[in-house]
């Protein structure tokens, strides 16, 4: 039987990672809510966020200002998303595209391959580490690596800002409405193309934030977004596609399940526990905990 300290340490670690996976899941489910499409290239925006963090910390800002790197990375990924959306995604909504889901799947997978290949060409297959100057955090008997604690805090701030934006701004109101009725938002006079662009930018920026925050933990390399993206999709299956409150709870559940199973069973199968949870949930509640019956942002 593991000691109480070890048990607590795993739970805290699980919850911290769960919060970061939630940021990723929020990005995926947010884009889906507004644009009714799954962006399969989310992991690559995570990867870009992590590379930008590395570049800003190592070559521009220095280790001391790593937190500014997170902000600049997020803004940069947001701008990149806003630039790519009209080129790659928008044709889906124009003309007579009948199979929008298939279109979105094909173009975002193509985008994933293009961005990943670009990372290999520009940065090589090497793992890089954007260092931080953060000391270990001690809470009683519990010690937490500084970069993990800060990544968790950053995730909470990102989620809070995202929530505040949706809840208290005009564009947030328009985005929440667009998730429920795209015609109603157009008859209100909202430019739906700009709103889609904004939604895509915000969605991928959330992935970029996760990438930047987790860069010192999981390092920086061309395929580093794969695991986090997979976790994001696991959370969405647990929560139900399109539910943002569900994504928050789903991230917590996934993080706790992985942590508890790791300490009680074996840490070697950490990633498998999430999959087993997803499989079990698909058997009893295939639409997820909050799916379809309540879809809103």
């Amino acid at each position: 039987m593991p000691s109480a300290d070890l048990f607590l340490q795993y739970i805290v670690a699980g919850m911290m990672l769960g919060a970061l996976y939630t940021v990723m899941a929020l990005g995926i489910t947010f884009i889906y809510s507004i644009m009714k499409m799954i962006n399969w290239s989310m992991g690559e925006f995570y990867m870009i966020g992590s590379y930008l963090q590395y570049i800003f910390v190592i070559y521009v800002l220095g280790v001391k200002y790593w937190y500014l790197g997170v902000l600049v990375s997020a803004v940069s990924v947001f701008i990149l998303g806003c630039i790519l959306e009209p080129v790659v995604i928008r044709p889906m909504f124009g003309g007579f595209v009948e199979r929008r889901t298939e279109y979105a799947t094909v173009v975002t997978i193509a985008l994933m391959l293009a961005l990943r290949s670009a990372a290999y060409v520009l940065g090589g297959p090497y793992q890089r580490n954007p260092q931080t100057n953060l000391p270990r955090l001690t809470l009683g008997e519990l010690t937490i690596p500084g970069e993990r604690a800060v990544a968790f805090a950053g995730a909470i701030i990102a989620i809070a800002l995202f929530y505040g934006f949706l809840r208290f701004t005009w564009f947030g109101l328009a985005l929440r409405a667009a998730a429920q009725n795209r015609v109603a938002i157009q008859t209100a006079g909202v430019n739906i193309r700009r709103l889609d662009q904004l939604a895509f930018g915000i969605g991928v920026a959330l992935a970029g934030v996760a990438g930047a925050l987790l860069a010192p933990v999981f390092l920086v390399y061309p395929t580093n977004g794969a695991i986090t993206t997979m976790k994001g999709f696991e959370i969405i299956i647990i929560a139900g596609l399109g539910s943002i409150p569900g994504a928050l709870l789903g991230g917590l559940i996934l993080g706790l399940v992985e942590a508890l199973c790791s300490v009680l069973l074996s840490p070697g199968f950490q990633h498998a526990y999430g999959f087993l949870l997803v499989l079990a949930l698909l058997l009893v509640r295939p639409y997820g905990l909050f799916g379809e019956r309540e879809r809103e942002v």
Partner: protein
Amino acid sequence: MSYLDVHEVTAGYQPGIDVLQGLSLQAESGAFVAIIGPNGAGKSTLLRTIFGLLHPHRGRITLDGLDITMQSPHKIKQLGVGFIPQGINIAPHLTVEENLKLGAWTFRSNARLVRQRLDEIYTRFPVLAERRRVRATELSGGQARLLSIARELMSEPCLLLVDEPTAGLAPHLAEHIYELLSSIHQRSGSTIVLVDQHMEAAIAIADYVYLLALGQIKAHGPSETFTPTRVRELIQASLLGV
């Protein structure tokens, strides 16, 4: 020149299939125009095309002399056009007040005006005032329809396009909606273009009537010329392709 001029417009949802087939229609400023016709005539498609949700393949649409043929809905909205589509046009999980605020999108930077219009709407629709913090999904069908209309009134449109406002409503609620549309027309002087399956009721409140069938205008004229007998004959002739 008419306030709204739809000139030989051809439009449809699929390539090669035109729902509107060279349709022309005019509405004078301050007029109340009813568009009637059998199912599949293209009535709703016409309103969607005027509002820019569907772009015509051919033809021209002008509003007060300005060409709006290929404009996006948000641009057309900025010109003072409101559109109440068929069914309930609200965001169900937003509160009543949030839905109404969306109607103020085009002047959202003017917080005082937004508040003033909200107060006006609440005075006019006390039932919405009572339920302002309630999610729209909790409203009854009639209340939700009122909210759809009230939301459009927030922007005080010069031209209001209304598609089947009473479809699926109980007769007494439908009557209330017609009274409401009539009072909007009288009070604000807006031009109203109403598409309705309830032909008698639509003709009764309109000044001018267009009868559509198979994407074309089959008859038009002052509403008093559309007697029940004539309407029946026109519809029969349209359905039989005469």
